[in-house]
């Protein structure tokens, strides 16, 4: 349960995950972190139908290109209640 670690891009609309790691250049990592996308943070995928994704984290909604979303690895939260396991 909730053990699968996958790129953000594989989360379906409405699914949530805890960010496990972010790879890529320091510029990208820093930029994502300043917007709240960094390890330990909880994200929810709102839109994922080809083209960029929309995710929400901490009450912010962020549109993010598929290339960048590939580099964010999340641990999927499987129970629908969205209760987070300790990160």
């Amino acid at each position, binding site marked *: 349960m909730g053990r699968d670690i996958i790129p953000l891009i594989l989360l379906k609309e409405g699914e949530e995950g805890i960010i496990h790691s972010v790879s890529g250049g*320091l*510029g*990208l*990592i*820093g*930029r*994502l*972190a*300043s*917007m*709240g996308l*960094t*390890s*330990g*943070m909880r994200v929810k995928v*709102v*839109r994922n*139908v*080809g*083209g*960029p994704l*929309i995710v929400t984290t*901490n*009450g*912010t*909604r*962020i*549109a*993010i*290109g598929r*290339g*960048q979303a590939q580099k964010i690895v999340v641990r999927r939260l499987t129970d629908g209640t969205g209760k987070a396991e300790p990160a």
Partner: protein
Amino acid sequence: MADRDLLVALAGQPNVGKSTVFNILTGLSQHVGNWPGKTVEKKEGYYISGATRIKIVDLPGSYSLTAYSEEERIARNFIINERPDVIVLIANGSAIERSLYLLAEFLLLKAPIIVALNMMDVAEQQGIRIDIDLLEKYLGIPVIPMVASKNQGIKALVSAILSLSEGKKEYMPSIADISEDHRDIFMELADILEKYITPPYLTRWTITKIMEGDPDITEKMSQTVPPDSWSKVQALLLRHEDSLFAVVRGRYDWIEGAVRSAVSEFKRGQILFTDRLDDILTRPVLGIPILLGVLALVFSLTYGLGLPLQQLLESLMNSLATWVEPLLGQSPWLRGIIVDGLIGGVGTVLTFLPVLLFFFAAMAFLEDVGYMARAAFVMDRFMHVIGLHGKSFFPICLGFGCNIPAVMGARILESGKTRLLTIFLTPFVPCTAKLAVVTLVAAAIFGKKAFIISWALVAGNILILGFSGAIVSRLFFKRQHMPFIMELPFYHKPNPRTIGMVTWKRIVAFVKKAGTIIVVFSVLLWFFSYFPGGNIEGSVLGFLGRSMEPIGRPIGLDWKMIVAVLASVTAKENSIAALGVLYGVGEVGIREILPNVMSHASALSFLVILMLFAPCVATLVVMKQEMGSWRWFLSSFIFMLLLSYVSGMAVYQFALMAGI
């Protein structure tokens, strides 16, 4: 009289209502310019409070303070070098974690900070409660709750600025530390680097930045630190590749502490308005038709309301000309410069103000309520095909009004390459003035079919924009991917003040260009179209046109039409004026005369060339300025000339073969 001057910097991430606060504080005293040597806007203004004059500088919005973008670099250099008396960090009460991230960075710079916690109403609607006292206690700095859109909290903010600058308030900021497992590395780095860090740079800040991999600071230090020490630093950093994460984690731990102590969030029972709207607007199947509908509405409103006013102004200008003419006496000089040059050139450009006003207001409205970000999101996949960014959609849209604000609007793009390409493609967006010329000529020559011709020309132009973008981006940018990360702000009620300010700013930029560059060029054009012969046939322009006649033959243009195309560079409408003068008609009679002197094939070619030819000189000047490179500017100029020539020839030859 001000006895005391204070320097206050406004900082904040995008979409926190920073410009609203700035506008309320500075009103009409604000001055908009550029940061020295940068294409980033610098806004400053004054607020007078009793005997104190507060100079307020609006720092560019940035998510963090690491030098990855021009905006971030400007913001932090300002804090480090100018040492403002107080920094006001505008934070978004409904997304407090993210706002605090930027605060953590500012606090490290040891500057006196006040947090203005804006959008408290939005936070409340979402069931977020923030205990201001507890938050102040945790952060150790003043926190002022605000609802800037309703003008609430401004007074409290001003008095907090005053008392902090007088040292009346307790100020003991808590600072985010890096996560525990990396403190030893921090100390090791400090041991090596400390003695090389000189004011205005602070030791703790500099070392944190080095751990974050900040390109500017790393570069700076690598030059001051002796090579053997520097290689030790690099070895340390290499061994601890995760230093950046340690810094980030430390900040988020600190933020979590703040949130835990002061924020309580109730289960958001109600589905947010934004959620519901986004569910419709960002779904491609619905979002794209809706976007097209919205644009159609914007254009029909703009032209429906703006065109009658434009025609009214036009007739006013004509009466002005007939009224002024007798007063100017016999001198052909004075008459030419004033009537043909100034009233004919600048006057015509200014008649477009109503159309632009409605268009820019509609755009500013869409921007303000938060729709533009969704439009950029929906369009991103298409924009990518032509090598642009979703966000490029916005300046491109502005281009339909006038290319000048579109070129300047490209500043919102972070990547320099996307910005260059967006500016490169902007002239292919038919602006109001181009459309006016095309409509007039098409109506005169093609009668009932004019609508189809105009439509085909606009559609063709947009297709060419797409193809050019695809080709240029493939050729020059290869397969460089452009990261797309964009915040989608919450939808909110339009704020008339913000919309008014944005519209005003864009209109002023347009008028300034019209008032300076176009004046000069209108007068010059008149000069060249009058001397030495005393009429246009015997003038420099006439000579130029005639000598270019051989070039015009394959594209079906006689020398008069060539002159009209050349004249369009001063301002698009001038080509009509030139046609009028050259074919010996008053502007009134142009509709009757044109069909007799232009064949259908020539007219088609003329229209195509006019659409694709170099933009007006005001746009060219702004393009050069914003591209900042002669190479790019000249290639785009030559590209347009070649493209218009080739396309004109293709259309003309095809029309001849098809017997049109």
